[in-house]
């Protein structure tokens, strides 16, 4: 396992290129604005969010039954159903299906679950080549980077970067940065991939208990190109993708793309119910910590997530720190409440990568109380001893100062004295508050001193 760079360190590196950070910030805000425009065009938007949230409440409270109902119906439809307790078991199941067919290549459409399980690395170690077919994922895969956003995997890159990458790997013209030209090059390359792969893997956006079918949404059509041309279709899903009935898709499909990119719906919303004649279809249902999260009352709502990415696009911290700084398959606010469940020690920094402004909660299509959960995770992490000692020391120091009025008074005086007479002691890089900020001019007196003075003046007047 590679060493993890904590969020604030990675964010500091990302912020060195001011122009690029500003561009990243504005690009994601642009996506957020498109979401607003699209949402505001639906008069019943809030009713849809409320309904979606309530459907998910029902799913979470009845997961045990729905999963068995889904399994029974999927089996009836001729789909093979597998269960994986963790990422490792998921990877082994996928590999065993590939190995059974004696192939060493697979095409894959976007699946954050397989990122979470590190499937590509596992298969590579076992001699299976995986090609990611979503354009953004294809780009980052060529660059040996993880996606930086669940919906927009290459959002951290500029077209010049993509041009260089394609020049190196696909032989496109050097310096040709035209997105149309670059997309066309990838289309040609990947068409050949679709036509030659016997096994295709897709993610799952929704799985319907009532019918045993699953729905995969893409704009590019890559999931369908892979699945309909392959002999074997493997679909991988976290168990929280379940919804009770087919008609509930109407609610979620109205919310998903509008929340994600502001589109009224993705170009393709494909419902896979049965394998096509002669085809094999597999579903791998994965737990990997989800059942634990289901038992954490404060955090179980995070399992309602439909992976639209709206919370990332709106987050002032995500926009200015980039997806990679979250060192987790799902970045941003939602990732920061999912990640500590998987590994508290490794992800203890993430719930602190937030201003708790609440914008994430306001845009969430299934009304997850994201910022409240971030706040609650902080408390759990401190109690469990996972926060960095510097932060704990500072907090302890602060609590000692705030708890004792005379210490507070002296500390305030000392602070004003330092800022006035020895500004270099705070205006330096050791002080995190000084980064990208000027320290304020110190007040002449504290509020208490001012209050005491005023009280005396008014008394004297009488």
């Amino acid at each position, binding site marked *: 396992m590679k060493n993890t760079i904590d969020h604030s360190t990675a964010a500091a590196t990302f912020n060195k290129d001011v122009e690029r950070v500003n561009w990243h910030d504005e690009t994601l805000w642009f996506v957020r604005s498109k979401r607003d425009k699209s949402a505001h065009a639906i008069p*019943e938007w809030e009713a849809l969010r409320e*309904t979606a949230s309530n459907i998910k409440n029902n799913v979470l409270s009845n997961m045990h039954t729905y999963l068995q109902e889904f399994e029974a119906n999927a089996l009836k439809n001729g789909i093979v159903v597998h269960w994986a307790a963790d990422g490792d078991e998921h990877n082994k199941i996928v590999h065993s299906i590939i190995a059974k067919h004696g192939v060493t290549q697979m095409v894959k459409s976007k699946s954050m679950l397989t990122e979470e399980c590190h499937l590509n690395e596992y298969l590579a170690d076992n001699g299976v080549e995986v090609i990611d077919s979503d354009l953004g994922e294809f780009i980052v895969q060529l660059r040996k980077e993880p996606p930086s956003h669940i919906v927009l995997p290459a959002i951290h890159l500029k077209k010049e970067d993509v041009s260089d990458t394609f020049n190196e790997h696909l032989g496109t013209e050097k310096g040709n940065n035209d997105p149309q030209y670059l997309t066309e090059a990838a289309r040609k390359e990947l068409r050949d991939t679709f036509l030659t792969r016997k096994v295709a893997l897709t993610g799952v956006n929704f799985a319907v208990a009532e019918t045993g079918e699953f729905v995969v949404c893409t*704009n590019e059509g890559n999931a369908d190109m892979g699945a*309909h041309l392959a002999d074997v279709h493997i679909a991988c899903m976290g168990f929280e993708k379940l919804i009770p009935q087919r008609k509930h898709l109407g609610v979620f499909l109205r919310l998903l793309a509008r929340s994600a990119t502001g589109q009224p*719906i993705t170009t393709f919303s494909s419902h896979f119910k049965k394998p096509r004649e002669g085809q094999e279809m597999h579903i791998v249902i994965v737990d990997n910590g989800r*059942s634990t999260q289901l038992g954490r009352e404060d955090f179980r709502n995070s399992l309602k997530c439909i992976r639209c990415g709206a919370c990332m696009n709106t987050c002032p911290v995500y926009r200015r720190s980039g997806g990679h700084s979250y060192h987790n398959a799902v970045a941003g606010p939602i990732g920061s409440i999912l990640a500590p469940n998987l590994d508290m020690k490794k992800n203890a920094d993430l719930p602190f990568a937030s201003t708790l402004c609440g914008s994430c909660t306001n845009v969430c299509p299934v009304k997850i109380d994201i910022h409240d959960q971030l706040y609650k995770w902080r408390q759990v992490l401190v109690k469990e001893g996972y926060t960095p000692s510097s932060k704990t020391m500072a907090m302890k120091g602060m609590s000692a100062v705030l708890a004792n009025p005379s210490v507070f008074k002296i500390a305030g005086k000392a602070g004003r004295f330092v800022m006035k007479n020895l500004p270099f002691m705070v205006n330096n890089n050791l002080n995190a508050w000084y980064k990208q900020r000027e320290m304020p001019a110190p007040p002449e007196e504290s509020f208490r001193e001012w209050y005491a003075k005023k009280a005396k003046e008014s008394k004297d007047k009488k």
Partner: protein
Amino acid sequence: MSSRDSILSKIKNNQPTSVSELPSLSFLGLDKIDVIETYKTVLKGIGGFCEEVSSLDEVKAYIAAHNPADKRKITTLPEFADIAETEWTNDDPHSLQNVELAIVKAHFGVAENSGLWVTDAILGQRVSPFIPQYLSIIVNKKDILATMQQAYERIGDLDYGFGTFIAGPSKTADIEQSLVLGAHGARGLTVFLIE
């Protein structure tokens, strides 16, 4: 214990103790809209073309005028047998890789997102709306519904192997948020709204 049983038992222990009720959907999707006008506007907004026609002959004339005659065309509609192949539905799906245009019919369309519902029954092959360079879909004007709520009421408990909503041409904005039509699927979609 198998993974299946241990996952299910853990879920049973950890899920909330009381089941919360499913909400009613009956109050959704009732806003009055001009479905045809909305459909056309939304489709245009996502990069599709819309043609209002009164007969299949008009569709045929449009296709002849807008597509090269020498390129491969396929259809599932017998009425188009004179301009497109109809005997391909049992072929290896890979053999469709050189198709320029596919002409199919949709069961219905949805005004709020311009999606068109198609299933196995009318696609000939599942890959047929994805693999061609261009796609033409014909739908009856009276089959344009207002929202996805009506769409799923219409689908009901219909049995199918595969079904999909198609809204506009295949597209991507993965390179610097620049919209490019024709990612992996059809580069262009023309919808014929027929009386």
